[in-house]
């Protein structure tokens, strides 16, 4: 029999990162992701890797900058207010093309908000909360097992593209415990050479890592090169999951915890012979534009569900424009949906009493 292990989402991020070769972690406590930093403090040191409890998220992200430019796989984690503090650092990582993995276990905002689950950092994650022309890859797992699958992928994509990769969870996903096949943790990741890393100039000419370009036109050239990289990511790294067939009448568009809730709703409605489908972006950036557009050729009703007042829906609107009916259902400020309210909304869309 396969060995299974009972583990929380927060600890799964941590363990999967260690298995993926994370050599440096720095973090600052914040609910609802404290289990992650606590787990790292034990396991990183036991593994002979580096753990630093930083004095702030400003320090965490800049420690990550230092570890990353050394050529070491590195990660930090936080929840919404802490991720806000990291934005300048993320922009510098982007400007210097340094790989890094950042976990955001989202909580309610704005401000101190609350410590309940939320998806209100979608704009911040996909639009880039920091300054300048840059993009971060955003992966949104919806189960603990998927955390274990996507975390190593995050490290691989970060190295492959020399880019920041955000792993976006929420308070439910972080705190929830699930049984996960142990061999899922044994994923091998591809390693990429890092000739750009600063390790001292022995045997080569001195190098620098920087994001300042003062000469006229120089920064534009860099930004256009970055944009070409982002275009390659848009082409090659789109990921999604769908549960749609030719009889589907409404497609629910949701990610993370909300997508998981939708699966229960879909099961219930299908037992009533109401065929509702699911489109779940796994990469929030790059957003799966093309596939969503294809789906809209056959299905004309979409319901976007988010734990926010509506952020991902902007991406859905950009794709679908006026080619389909788009409705929205959101809960905000840390509140979550009941299956019944989702079902009522779908029935209303289908004019079913």
């Amino acid at each position: 029999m396969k060995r299974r292990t009972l583990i929380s989402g927060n600890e799964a991020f941590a363990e999967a990162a260690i298995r993926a070769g994370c050599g440096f972690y720095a973090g600052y406590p914040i609910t609802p992701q404290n289990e992650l930093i606590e787990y790292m403090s034990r396991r990183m040191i036991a593994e002979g890797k580096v753990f630093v409890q930083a004095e702030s998220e400003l320090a965490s992200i800049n420690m990550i900058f230092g570890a990353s430019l050394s050529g070491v796989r590195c990660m930090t984690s936080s929840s919404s207010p802490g991720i806000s503090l990291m934005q300048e650092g993320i922009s510098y990582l982007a400007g210097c093309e340094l790989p890094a993995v950042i976990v955001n276990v989202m909580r309610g905002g704005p401000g101190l908000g609350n410590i309940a689950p939320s998806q209100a950092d979608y704009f911040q994650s996909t639009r880039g909360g920091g300054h300048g022309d840059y993009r971060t890859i955003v992966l949104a797992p919806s189960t603990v097992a998927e955390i274990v699958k996507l975390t190593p992928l995050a490290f691989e994509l970060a190295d492959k593209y020399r880019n920041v990769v955000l792993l976006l969870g929420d308070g439910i996903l972080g705190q929830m415990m699930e049984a996960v096949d142990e061999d899922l943790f044994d994923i091998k990741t591809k390693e990429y050479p890092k000739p750009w890393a600063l390790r001292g100039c022995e045997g080569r000419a001195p190098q620098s890592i920087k994001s300042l370009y003062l000469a006229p036109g120089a920064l534009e050239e860099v930004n256009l090169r970055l944009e070409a990289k982002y275009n390659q990511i848009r082409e090659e790294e789109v990921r999604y999951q769908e549960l749609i067939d030719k009889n589907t009448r409404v497609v629910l568009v949701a990610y993370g915890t909300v997508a998981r809730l939708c699966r229960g709703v879909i099961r219930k409605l299908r037992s009533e012979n109401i065929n509702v489908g699911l489109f779940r972006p796994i990469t929030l950036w790059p957003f799966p534009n093309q596939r969503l557009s294809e789906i809209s050729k056959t299905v004309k009703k979409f319901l976007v569900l988010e734990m926010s007042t509506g952020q991902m829906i902007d991406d859905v609107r950009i794709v679908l424009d006026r080619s389909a009916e788009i409705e929205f259902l959101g809960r905000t400020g840390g509140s979550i949906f009941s299956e019944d309210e989702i079902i009522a909304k779908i029935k209303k869309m289908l004019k079913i009493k």
Partner: protein
Amino acid sequence: MKSIYKKPISLNGVHTHYCTGCGHGLVHRLIAEVIDELKIRERTIGIAPVGCAVLAYDYWNFDVTEAAHGRPLAVATGIKRVQPDKIVFTYQGDGDLASIGANETIHAANRGENLTVIFINNGVYGMTGGQMAPTTLMGQKTTTTKLGRDHKLHGFPLPLLDMLKVLDGVCYLERRSLFSPAEVIKAKKAISKSFINQIDGLGFSMVEILSPCPTHWKMSSLECLTWIEKEVTKTYPVERVK
């Protein structure tokens, strides 16, 4: 013929962008000389600040990165913790180290990170046009203290180096200046010691250097040196603090 003066290998043969009489170029050279003498060039990683010295990577002939404003010591912590065999140093202005980055400074020092910090105290924010720095002297005029620094409005000059003395993680603190050739030699000795401490694994070492800024002090190069000797050293005595 015996050569008694030449360009250190650790310094690139290029013109710097620094103003006439500025201290940055001189301290760059002292650091380069020390790195040559200690034969650590090939395993040194420097961190340039946001400030007048941001382009230091063009002037030093070893690996250099650039940190966000105030964050060199967090970046240095990341580098040194994963590459403990390398020699890692930060080069920071007083705005960078003592204002926006004061928290990073205190905590890197308190953790006893095995790092070298070269702290350039020129009493102003040079790069942004000569505004008040945390180190600006009482009564000193800057572009944001037109009538002179007034403690009721601006607080007092921050003695960050001295504040670090009480921290157990700190190994070595010294304040030097550049106002005479003898002082320059002492400054170099202190810089050298701060690197040797790191080589020996002794922990956090910081050298503060009182440095002239003729452009923003609106003085000649020579007047700057006299000002440092007569005025700046009253608030910031040149001495070994720890």
